[in-house]
């Protein structure tokens, strides 16, 4: 609880505003080794355990006639399959990528939700590495798909020298396309997710820090009024963050699908 953990210490000086330090918490286990664990990684491990436990239990208990919870999980799985993968890629070529996109979507969604769960209060995707790893997976998939479907040469030619463009344009276009292919796509996926999580945490933590400061710590009781406003803001942003968690998972999944789909030949 980055924002709250040191709040008591800073109580005298003013509201403890969230800072970059929230995203760079100190290591608490196995310090100095490549397996060091800090707060965010702990949150991530817990989220992973919960996600896997829930999904595995649901999967093992799955019946042909679903109960309420199973229906909900199935609705999500079918939403990912039909509304994300099949809608963009079509059923034939999309089938191969359904497990990947499902994994991405659910993992990102659950990790994002950690940002509003009391006690965790920081998204498990709130270090750049996690989104980066997701993005690299997508990156590998669309390169592999391109090379497999077209061969390396034709794939690069099609991506770097799009047909129907007069040749002088290539001087500008080709470097941009190359940059897009190797750098912009994975980095944009990473930064979109990461920055959203940072922004969400900063907003929420700021609201709650001011609430705490004005209502609890401030000697002047008249300041409780703006404190309440901050609290309302905190509530609204909590709901908004839940929405953003789902939206970002959706966007990440849909962009991954779209990128992979672009590696396939235009018409089959």
């Amino acid at each position: 609880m980055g924002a709250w953990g040191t709040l008591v210490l800073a109580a005298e000086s003013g509201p403890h505003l969230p800072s970059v330090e929230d995203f760079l918490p100190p290591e608490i286990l196995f310090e100095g080794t490549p397996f060091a664990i800090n707060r965010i990684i702990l949150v991530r491990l817990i989220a992973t355990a919960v996600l896997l436990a829930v999904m595995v239990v649901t999967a093992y208990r799955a019946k042909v006639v679903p109960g309420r919870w199973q229906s909900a999980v199935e609705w999500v799985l079918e939403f990912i399959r039909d509304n994300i993968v099949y809608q963009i890629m079509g059923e034939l070529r999309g089938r191969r990528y359904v497990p990947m996109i499902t994994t991405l979507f659910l993992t990102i969604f659950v990790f994002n939700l950690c940002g509003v769960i009391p006690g965790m209060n920081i998204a498990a995707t709130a270090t750049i590495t996690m989104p980066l790893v997701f993005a690299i997976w997508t990156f590998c998939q669309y390169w592999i798909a391109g090379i497999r479907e077209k061969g390396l040469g034709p794939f690069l030619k099609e991506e770097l020298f799009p047909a129907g463009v007069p040749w002088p344009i290539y001087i500008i276009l080709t470097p941009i396309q190359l940059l897009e292919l190797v750098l912009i796509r994975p980095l944009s996926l990473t930064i979109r997710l990461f920055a959203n999580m940072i922004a969400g945490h900063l907003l929420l933590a700021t609201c709650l820090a001011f609430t705490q400061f004005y209502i609890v710590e401030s000697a002047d009781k008249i300041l409780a009024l703006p404190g309440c406003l901050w609290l309302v803001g905190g509530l609204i942003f909590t709901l908004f963050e839940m929405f953003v968690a789902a939206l970002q998972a959706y966007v990440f999944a849909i962009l991954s699908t779209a990128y992979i789909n672009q590696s396939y030949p235009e018409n089959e």
Partner: protein
Amino acid sequence: MKPLAEGGIDLFLPETYDIVWSLVILVVIAAVFYKVVLPRFQKVFDERSARIEGGIAKAEQARKEADEAKRKYEERLSTARVEASKIRDDARAEASHIIADARSRAETDAAQITANAQRSIESQQQQALVSLKGEVGTLATALAGKILGAKLEDGAVQASMIDQMIADMDGDGDGK
């Protein structure tokens, strides 16, 4: 907002342990999803669609059977109907036959009765004629005798005798 120590850039520089854990977590989640969770759900989906298809096939089968039964029933119904109408026609024909028979028999009977009656009337007429003939002769003779007898005695007696005779005849006629 107090300016913090420079360090914002640190956010964008991945730590080694962070990379390690991210990879481990992603690999674990992906492995479990690929190997366990999704295949099981897929199995359930397949089973469900198989069930639904089986249900549809069963319903189709049932429909076919019902159609067959209905066809048989209708067939039987139509044969029954044909049979019934045949029976009815037969009955009607028989009835008309019977009626015609009865009528012809009645006509014969009637003709016979009429002939008998005719015959008995004729015989009675004959009989009446015969008996009348005999009686008229007797009467005429008697009348003639009486007329002749009375004429001898008196003109007034003659007239009364004639009257009496006529009355006798009437009485005879009535008596007959």
